[in-house]
């Protein structure tokens, strides 16, 4: 019975939010607010569960040092007070510091060295003209796109630099087009899931 009720609620909310395609109405807003309310409630429960298991239970079992992150967490709420705003900066500084420190450990390897390594392509792949051509396009695109951002070279007004820079701009536009197409694909796929749900699970057609 609960499954059937859930199915109907889900179907009705899907239809309600779909009315947004026509225009923003109280019907679509109601569905939107229900979703936000449910997610907020769930987030609060999850957050409390996380604090409970990673701090409260440990403090209660005698691991008193876990009170420090709890105090730091409470300090973060000082941002809502104009007089005590400065207190909020300490936990944030700590969180940012830990985050940056952790990320730095793999940053150079993952985001710099490995990416530079992966940009070295062989221009002659034996027996595979397609791969060779593909790698050549990658190299020209990489160099020209980088050229677009080197303003000192462009300032020399060298015709080669300007042409490469222009090609780099078109290459980036092609990349942005690819990103845009992927964004559309994501949205379509998200809605395809809802259509499939309405047609196959709710109406049981097909």
């Amino acid at each position, binding site marked *: 019975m609960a499954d059937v009720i859930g199915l109907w609620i889900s179907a009705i909310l899907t239809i309600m939010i779909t009315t947004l*395609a026509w225009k923003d109405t109280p019907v679509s807003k109601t569905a939107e607010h229900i979703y936000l309310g449910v997610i907020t409630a769930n987030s609060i429960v999850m957050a409390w569960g996380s604090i409970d298991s990673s701090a409260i239970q440990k403090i209660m079992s005698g691991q008193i040092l876990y009170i420090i992150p709890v105090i730091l967490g409470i300090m973060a709420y000082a941002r809502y007070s104009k007089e005590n705003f400065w207190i909020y900066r300490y936990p944030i500084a700590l969180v940012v510091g830990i985050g940056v420190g952790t990320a730095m450990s793999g940053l150079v390897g993952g985001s710099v060295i490995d990416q530079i390594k992966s940009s070295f392509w062989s221009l002659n792949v034996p027996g595979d003209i397609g791969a060779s051509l593909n790698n050549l396009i990658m190299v020209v695109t990489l160099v020209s796109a980088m050229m677009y951002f080197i303003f000192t070279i462009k300032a020399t007004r060298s015709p080669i630099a300007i042409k490469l820079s222009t090609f780099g701009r078109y290459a980036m536009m092609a990349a942005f087009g690819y990103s845009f197409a992927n964004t559309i694909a994501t949205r379509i796929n998200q809605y395809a899931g809802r259509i499939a749900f309405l047609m196959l699970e709710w109406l049981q057609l097909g």
Partner: protein
Amino acid sequence: MGENGGIGKTLANLPTWLYFGLIIIAMAYITLYPLGFPIPISDQTRYVYAAVDVLETGDIFFVNMGYESGTIAFMEPGMVAVFRHAISKGVKLVIMSTAVESPMLVGRLMDKVKPEASGYVYGEDWVHLGFIAGGEPSYASLMGDINGLVTEDYQQTPTSDLPLMAELGAPTHEKIALVGIWTAGGDVIEGWIRQAAVQYDLPLITEVNEMMVPTLLPYYPINLDGILNGGIGAAEYENLSGFAGEAIKLSDMMTMGGLVVLIFLILGNIGFLMTKGGKK
């Protein structure tokens, strides 16, 4: 309307409801009458398949499930197909979440995967640790000593009562054979690349929504062993692995929806060229 400007203006300003309406009609029609468009398999998907296929019985597959209900249509089928493949090889699964909604979705996911049908026992062959806060610093801790960070699973069972968690031990990364990330957020993957792939040279596979793929391609294939490109990638994986599921059913709808968008893009551009573009 008879003049070029009139037609162009109309094409450039087609109403939104017409656009969405036709997409809905096209996708609903194709649900009832699938055409079976071909599903060519990309190298990115082949590499994901290879990363799972190389695992052996008893290997541990660590999974970060970071998607929420909005992306369930294409994330879940990909995850189901990969899990079925992993389970067919006797691989153990450790599931955690970095999105607060995800733990709620694990139940319906595992209902579809049906690990118990392959003799899997919760706690021994797979565990669900629930939501783990903290972002990248927590990934670093998980790879170091998972039991130091996680003391209970999603159902609040102490991790000390779960044999699989004891098997993981410390340093945890030495016991993990593969890391899989399902998420709609690129920062999650970049964090895992730094903490698992770069630090410990662990193989890493991911499924993300299509719009995240361009930002991840620079990491592929050196740091990311394979990428499932949203719903298309999930359909490719189902096709390749033989575990046919929902993604293959959705692939026709995705293709048809894309075709309708393409038609509108062409019409809009024709309208643009007949008005503003034409004047230039």
